[in-house]
């Protein structure tokens, strides 16, 4: 079964970073690595808009500068058609950036990419068969990222809806990140209202959730 492909034209860099961070990528059977002559073949194929070498992979991870803009556009188009996640790493990226529209594209700095978070990301994929991009994006900080984003979104909602009494069903505008549900138990976040809404005192309930989020953030950052 094909799972994730890693395309690397700068093998010495990969080897150096993997050695430095003690990552043994070659032993992960769910990961296919394309480099050297295989990379050259792939480049030729993509130049001819042939993608058979990439077929079946759920995620393509590649060095950004390995491709010309034309080749990159063509790969993005392929990912869009096949709903494949594209992860691009490079040496010149200051800030990790995730584009959530189709195709999902994660831009990440090469040193952040070749780190323990890559192993965490692949492990999580092997266990759940889900591509949890926040793990790759934020590494061990992914939970704090989710908690802070949620707190901000909730604050915006409360600012816009002062004293709101009833929340009939899950309100889209609260913008709770999907990943929040996977950590709500760990941080004792009360999301019991999520399925059926809040019949009364919605403002207080959400304000309470906001406090829970602040406690959770405090727990992660200072304990």
């Amino acid at each position, binding site marked *: 079964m094909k799972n994730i492909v890693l395309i690397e034209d*700068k093998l*010495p*860099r990969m*080897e*150096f*970073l993997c050695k430095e961070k003690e990552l043994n990528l070659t032993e992960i059977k769910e990961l296919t690595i394309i480099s050297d002559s295989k990379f050259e073949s792939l480049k030729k194929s993509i130049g001819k808009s042939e993608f058979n070498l990439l077929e079946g992979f759920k995620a393509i991870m590649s060095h950004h500068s390995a491709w010309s*803009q034309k080749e990159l556009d063509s790969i993005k188009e392929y990912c869009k058609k096949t709903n494949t996640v594209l992860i691009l790493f490079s*040496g*010149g*990226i*200051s*800030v*990790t*950036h*995730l*584009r*959530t529209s189709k195709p999902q*594209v994660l*831009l990440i*700095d*090469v*040193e952040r990419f070749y780190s323990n978070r890559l192993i965490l990301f692949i492990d999580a994929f092997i266990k759940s068969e889900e591509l949890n991009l926040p793990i790759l*994006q*934020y590494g061990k*900080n992914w939970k*704090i*990222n989710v908690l*802070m*984003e949620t*707190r*901000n*979104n909730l*604050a*915006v909602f409360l*600012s*816009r809806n002062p004293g709101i009494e009833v929340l009939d069903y899950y309100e889209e505008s609260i913008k709770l990140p999907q990943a929040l549900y996977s950590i709500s138990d760990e941080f004792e976040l009360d999301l019991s209202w999520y399925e059926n809404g809040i019949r009364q005192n919605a403002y207080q309930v959400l304000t309470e959730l906001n406090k829970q989020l*602040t406690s959770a*953030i405090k727990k992660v*950052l*200072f304990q």
Partner: protein
Amino acid sequence: MKNLLIHCKNTSLVDLAEFKENNIVFKIPDDLEVDRYMTNLIDEQIVPSQPDAIFIKYALENDYIAFLGLRLGYHIRLYQGDKKITDIPLIFVGEETITELIRLSHFTDILGTEGTYFIKEELHQAKTVLQRVESGQLSGCDSSADFLNRITIQAPRNYDTRHSFINELSLYLWSRYIGNQEAAEQVKKRVENNLYFKYKINSEQYLKEQEQITELPVFEVSSKILLIDDEAEKGWETFYEHLFSRSEKKVEFKSLNVSRNSSTEDVLVNAESAIREFNPDVILLDLRLTEQDVFEKDPKKLTGYSILKKIKTINRGTQVVVTSASNKSVVFRDLLNAGADNYVLKNAEAIIGTSSLIEAIKLAINEAKILKPIHTSLSISIDAIRSDQLKKLDVGEDSDYYYEELKSELISYLSLVQELLTNRNNTDRFSITLLQMHKCLEVITDYYIESLFEKSSKPPQYEFYTGEHAHFFSMDDGNNIKVIKWKKSNHMSIVQKFFNTYHYFTNRPKSSLFVELKKLNKYRNSYSHPNLDRDFTSLEALYEDDFKSFRKSFIRVTSAFFEFFIAIR
């Protein structure tokens, strides 16, 4: 009054009438690096809108804890243009506490600087601040110097990027310092958007560096200089061409094109071929030349290190000035061990950096002019001795023993000279070199003259065993030589032995050579009596004070020594 709100659709402040029209949605296009996007944002949207205060969300991206709002704040403060924008009051908006931000971001220094405020995601707080802006109660950042003193921005964390940035920064600042605007502009175009670059060129410390060198240096000794740097085409080649522009008639400068994608082996082959063909006196050598080098931690595995070793096998006297952005002492130590003659750190200190570079190049040229010919002759001489090219005398059954002893002594003295000359820390290296050369001549004359006399069947001491008379060489003030038959009763001085040996093998008295051999002997004697005769000690002083005279004098004496050596081969 006009206020501007910058957000990524993650704030309720946008609902306020004040911001309905005056807000910018922050969204980095896929193909744009964050710093470039921020620079464009300031140039194209923020500056034209002429705001009086800017409200910025801490988080401006789905990479929430990158807190790009803080980064944008730095870009605004470091903006090179309209001072109204640079000094503008900045109001950061978000639920985060200062302690949370400090724990998560390297960009929180700005929060402690003048003209910076922060509010929660609450409309009444925002309205209060807006009223303060309206009434002129909210001050901006009046002092850029104070701002720069209060902040630090770390160099990019990625090694490759960091390496490049320090290289770029030094190239930019050094080029500007020596008045080479072309190279400076070349760099600026490449990295001007980068926050770290903006910070460095804004910092007060570096503002001082905007001074320019009063005039370019003149390199007075003719020389050939080769640059081996993978970033030569990025501006270093132009930099050096400008640096040597007042010395065009003296300095012949070339640059070796190195492609980062090449293998170490290919670069080494190309470098060796260029060095043999161009025969440079000085090589300006970068260490990290290939893609593999970028991630190599062991200095001994770097391509530049291999080239350095190769250069020193071709001619130990060729001077290698390593120019690198790496300031690790282990690198420095390994390079010195491998024979590097100098090390200039590419850094952001233009005055110190360029002065060190100029001084290093001048010194290297002088050294090469002395050492290259001597090292060539030393290598040839040692090879000749090793391959039994010295004339061997038949003195009976001990012939081999005496010959091997002669070889061994000469090789050890000449090898010592090889080491000695390359060690600039030895303040007497030239004097001791001459002392060693004199010692070599003593060993040679002891071998030949004594052997020749011993071999004689009829042993009058003034006659060689071949029957040839020993001679006395007298020299008048005009260095004219008079050769007369040796008188048996006279003691033969060491200088007369030198002359006799040379004369025996060449059958000619060469006055210019004999003058230099006499000088060599005089130097040797002055070493024994430094208080009486200062010739020896003044040699080193002459190197410092009058290099041309020193070079002339030193090369003449050492050339005479090697000419003598050739005579006995």
